């Protein structure tokens, strides 16, 4: 067990190292002037030259790389010349919004995926199974930013049932006192129920849009795993004990189907990270993703760079945790077989 963890850890560290080298090469070494990239097209030649010196772009590559990594690990993620703030500050301010959106998107995706996968697998081959499968194809194929747009057109513009792309709360409303940075949680803590309701309303469309791909992905995976497990003899054994078909599905098939599904959790996080870049733009959601897309528009790439490297770190760590967790939960790994 321990060797397993150690092995995974080393692999992750190596992967991160490789990723950082790749990022360094692509973002710093490639033709084109990183200093120009930072300062934008309107800076003067002198400022660019000065920045080049400051950034140490004249130093040997390996030294540059070491500084690059050292800076990153210390939290120096660059400076944004268009806003006058360090990237770290900006990201820290924006991350709670992204986390809140991602959290709700995940919860929605998870709950609906499990529920519908159970129904689809239980009623295999029926029209409801077909409809659910069709839904999963749709979720996997629809561009999330387009879906968000359509949703806005229908629910906001046509029917006026839900708020438009004006961020996390109505413009006239103040955010609740900051405890976690998640408006829904903070509003609940402060007892501001009107604010809570408003925040939730604003979350509906963005969360559904962001969660659509993870939902479809989980649904397909879980349904396939459930079907595989339901063919195993121990399901029939459970029923021979007197368990109903549905009971056997819930108590025996689902736990066993979850194990192989868990391995996809890391992938899911990657989808949420990438998706937030797309979805936040559509809804003007003030999170890290919008920061990135705004940066692209303004040709201010310092934020984009930092986000890229951060995503890699989060992604690798998440996959590592998932790998270890899968090993821990499976009793076959936790307690190796004894003889006799």
């Amino acid at each position, binding site marked *: 067990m321990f060797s397993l963890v150690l092995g995974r850890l080393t692999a992750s560290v190596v992967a991160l190292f490789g*990723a950082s080298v790749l990022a360094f090469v692509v973002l*710093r070494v490639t*033709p*084109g002037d990183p200093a120009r*990239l930072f300062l934008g097209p309107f800076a003067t030649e002198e400022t660019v030259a000065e920045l080049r010196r400051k950034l140490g772009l004249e130093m040997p590559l390996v030294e540059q790389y070491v500084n690059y990594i050292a800076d990153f690990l210390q939290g120096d993620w660059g400076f944004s010349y268009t806003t006058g703030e360090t990237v770290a500050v900006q990201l820290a301010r924006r991350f709670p919004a992204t986390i809140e959106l991602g959290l709700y998107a995940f919860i929605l995706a998870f709950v609906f995926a499990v529920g519908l996968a159970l129904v689809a697998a239980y009623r295999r081959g029926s029209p409801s199974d077909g409809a659910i499968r069709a839904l999963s194809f*749709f979720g996997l*194929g*629809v561009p999330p930013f*387009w879906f968000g*747009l359509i949703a806005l057109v229908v629910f906001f513009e046509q029917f006026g049932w839900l708020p438009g792309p004006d961020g996390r709360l109505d413009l006239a409303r103040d955010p609740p006192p900051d405890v976690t940075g998640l408006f829904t949680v903070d509003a609940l803590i402060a007892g501001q129920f009107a604010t809570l309701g408003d925040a939730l309303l604003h979350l509906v469309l963005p969360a559904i849009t962001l969660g659509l791909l993870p939902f479809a992905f989980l649904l397909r995976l879980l349904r396939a795993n459930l079907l595989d497990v339901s063919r195993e003899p121990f399901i029939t054994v459970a029923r021979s004990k007197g368990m109903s078909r549905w009971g056997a599905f819930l108590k025996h098939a689902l736990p066993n189907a979850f194990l192989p599904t868990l391995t996809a959790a890391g992938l899911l996080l990657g989808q949420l990270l990438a998706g937030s870049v797309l979805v936040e733009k559509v809804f003007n959601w003030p999170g890290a993703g919008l920061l990135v897309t705004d940066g692209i528009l303004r040709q201010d790439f310092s934020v984009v760079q930092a986000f890229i490297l951060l995503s890699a770190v989060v992604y690798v760590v998440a996959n590592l945790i998932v790998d270890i967790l899968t090993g821990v939960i499976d009793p076959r790994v936790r307690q190796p077989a004894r003889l006799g």
Partner: protein
Amino acid sequence: MADANAAFTSPRDRLAEWGGTAVDLGGAAGRACGYVARDPVLAIVAVVLGLLALIALFGPEVWGIDPLSIDLLVSLEGPSWAHPMGTDGNGRDVFARFLQGARISLSVGALVVITGLVVGGTMGLMAGISGRVVDNILMRVIDALAAFPPLILAMAITVGLGVGLDTGAFGIMLTSVPYYARLIRSDVVRIRALPAIEAAVAMGASRPRVVLRHIVPHTTSTMLIQSAAVFGYAILTLAALGFVGLGAQIPEPEWGAMITDGLQYALTGQWWIAVFPGLGVLLAVVATNMLADRARDLLDPHGQQASV
């Protein structure tokens, strides 16, 4: 050790071998037609994809209107006979842009699949058949590529190398390499242990022969199935890059960029600029995913082959 077979294989025998392979392929094509005939959903999917391929190949020329030509007099007009998908803010014909966008998306999709297969597939094959050292080295490189969520990696490439359609396509190609590499590698590792391969080696087949004639054919169905998924995924990612402004740049008629363009008009009633390109992406991706699914049902019903 020289190939024990070489002394006994005349050019005629070799020709017969390749002829045999051709017949196999032809037979497979025939079977494929049989499948389509029997499964209505598969038939619909095949038709949709066929149509898309047709319009990608011939659409822009047949329709005739230049997707880039500006005519401010007819800007923001809804769908009509003259402009079946309306016009955008600069009076450009959306339908012409849609057709050109189809060509762009489908060709990038095909390009990504081919390069991913060739590069990633070769890496995976090498890793699968080589010793631990080579395997490890190759896989660590793959791990470095796979450490980024795919869209993020493509964004990194376009930011570093300069934004645009070509760098965007290159970035997406890079994201498909680790996917194929891992896939082919695990498939090869599985196939390597099959008794058929042991038998071939025991009969004296040389290494390259074993690889090419025995191992690779077993991987073809995996490659086919997963390629359809990669194709769809490439189209989606290209649109995403275009949407955030890192891929194709306006006024280039790429579907994702068109959606961004239409964003500003969508909530004021001019829905057609953003909706149609999105429908295009949706159709293309869903159709290829369904095709991949059906192909999997037919070629690998028991889920024996690798999937990542």
